[in-house]
């Protein structure tokens, strides 16, 4: 299937309605559904959350667009509700965390490979190795605190091995910034990639900030505090990719187009027919939003949206195990560090970041403590003697 952005009008806003029963549907099965169905659900929750967040902030700064934003935002909110409520209640917060990190790894790896700009691809590979390490730390926590195997969630698609050690990921704020793409020169897919990843990281940050205090175990509370801090760094990192020279309407246009692109990617790969039908429905909804914003863009900016949007959508995000790419990146780039917006070798890492990290780790490191001598094995590390 190909989607032509300027031809497909999608569902008109007036027809995008919901009921409470529709919003709260039978959830997916934690045990039987494919892990990538959950990956898509988690990511699309983040994509919708980002739309909501942007549209609120946009309304704070633009009186003319307030009514239009309120109208679209309510629909986006209900889309997010329907999607997020597909997660079943037997997921513990820590199991959902494992799913969030699987999203971060598999989606970032796919995006890093489809990114045409070498610098942006480097940014993604850098973040990838950090989220990859979070998976290892949280898996150790799940094993050692809840007595559960993270692979029950991962279904063997995603490795549980150390990445760039979390204890070394803490950086000074200025070293989290990267160079933004150029709004004129960057290809549409580069803009979509950046928007997708900042959405994923932002929702992860918010999720950890919400559920962190619900843990009783002091080490779990510390680990969530530590990794939430890295996710905040990642939001800074990926957020700084967006060209600040884009107008509000240009950004809104891109966000809607990216939502179209993401739902299209979900439709193309979904294996659960019931969930696929939801992706198809929301693809049409987003085409409706895009069409609505295209008209606003023409009206208020007197510009041709074809300056910004591609005629056809790029190839969809590849929802599949990215094990080989991740391992190769790990082998080649785990030693990279930051100095301002540059990626540098360990030995010339920014001294400001080193000072910052020394301070943060001076009373212990939860991510080191939880995974001391941890090696994942099927059925948890207690399963050692089974063989």
């Amino acid at each position: 299937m190909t989607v032509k952005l300027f031809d497909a009008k999608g569902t008109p806003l007036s027809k995008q309605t919901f009921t409470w029963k529709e919003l709260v549907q039978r959830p997916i099965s934690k045990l039987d559904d494919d892990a990538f169905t959950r990956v898509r659900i988690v990511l699309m929750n983040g994509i919708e959350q980002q739309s909501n967040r942007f549209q609120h902030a946009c309304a704070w700064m633009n009186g003319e667009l307030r009514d239009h934003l309120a109208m679209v935002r309510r629909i986006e909110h209900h889309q997010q509700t329907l999607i997020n409520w597909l997660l079943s209640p037997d997921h513990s917060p820590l199991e959902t965390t494992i799913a969030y990190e699987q999203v971060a790894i598999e989606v970032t790896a796919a995006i890093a490979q489809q990114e045409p700009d070498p610098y942006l691809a480097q940014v993604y590979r850098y973040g990838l190795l950090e989220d990859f390490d979070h998976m290892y730390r949280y898996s150790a926590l799940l094993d050692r605190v809840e007595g559960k195997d993270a692979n029950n969630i991962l279904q063997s698609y995603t490795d549980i091995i150390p990445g760039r050690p979390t204890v070394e990921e803490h950086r000074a704020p200025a070293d989290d910034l990267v160079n933004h793409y150029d709004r004129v020169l960057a290809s549409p897919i580069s803009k979509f990639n950046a928007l997708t990843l900042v959405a994923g990281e932002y929702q992860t940050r918010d999720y950890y900030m919400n559920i962190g205090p619900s843990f009783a175990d002091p080490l779990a509370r510390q680990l969530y505090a530590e990794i939430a801090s890295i996710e905040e760094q990642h939001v800074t990192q990926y957020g700084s990719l967006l060209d600040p020279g884009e107008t509000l309407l240009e950004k809104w246009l891109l966000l809607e187009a990216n939502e179209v692109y993401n739902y299209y990617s979900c439709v193309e790969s979904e294996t659960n027919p019931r969930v696929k039908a939801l992706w198809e429905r929301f693809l049409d909804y987003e085409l409706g939003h895009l069409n609505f914003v295209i008209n606003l863009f023409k009206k208020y900016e007197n510009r041709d949206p074809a300056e910004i949007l591609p005629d056809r959508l790029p190839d969809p995000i590849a929802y599949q195990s990215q094990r080989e790419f991740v391992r190769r990146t790990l082998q080649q780039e785990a030693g990279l560090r930051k100095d301002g917006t540059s990626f540098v070798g360990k030995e010339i890492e920014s001294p400001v970041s080193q000072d910052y990290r020394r301070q943060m780790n001076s009373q212990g490191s939860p991510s080191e403590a939880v995974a001391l001598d941890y090696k994942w094995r099927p059925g948890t590390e207690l399963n050692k003697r089974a063989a």
Partner: protein
Amino acid sequence: MEKTNKLGRNRTGIDMSPIHSKEMISGAETLTPPTQSDFPPLMVIEREYIEEGGTVGSVPVPGTMKGVLKSTMEKMTGHNPEVLLNKMGERLAFERSGVRLYEAFIIKCESINLPTPISLDILQQFRAEEEQHFHTIKNAMLSMGADPTAQTPDADVVAVASMGIQKVIQDPRTSLSQCLSALLTAELVDNAGWEILIKLAEGLGLEQITADFVKPLQEEEKHLQTIREWYEYAVMAEAGKKLTKH
């Protein structure tokens, strides 16, 4: 009716994706380097927080030191009647939540064909008894000048422990035997709770309160016995075996 044991495409184990699993296992084995860390280990961090102390909260001071509590406090130097107050608060909260547990379970049972001997009438009776037990405790607390609307520390903690029980029974996807297993957990704890409550009241010489608590314990024993039997029946029925009487 029962769907607990349906065979299907459960994807959680390594056998469901042999190629991926093989790579994952060998990767974890070869790519997890030995840990070199100077940071304090897990146990040290946990202990630090435990040693820092703190509690979930306190037993509320009775608003009016009256009746039996006043005389008890005067008589029982060296005893701690606040333990009884804390435990009464716990039982009150548990019984109140127990009413809601039974209500949720009854809704589920009404929507399926219940196999004999599981009976909606008996479930309604148990629900009513849980509510009566709540009132029995409430009246005992009032007679001591204690505030039955306060949440005592043990009431808080037992509610934390019960969170999973509620989730199992409330989840529309859970089966009869899964719910009965959760309910059995609740009834086991409830029985032990009433037993300790009676011992505490007896120890403080509270004759009337001790006497008032006997009937709830007897009824809870019946709940436990019944739920245990139903649970066994439901599981054995799934296995295609008849339950033999002990």
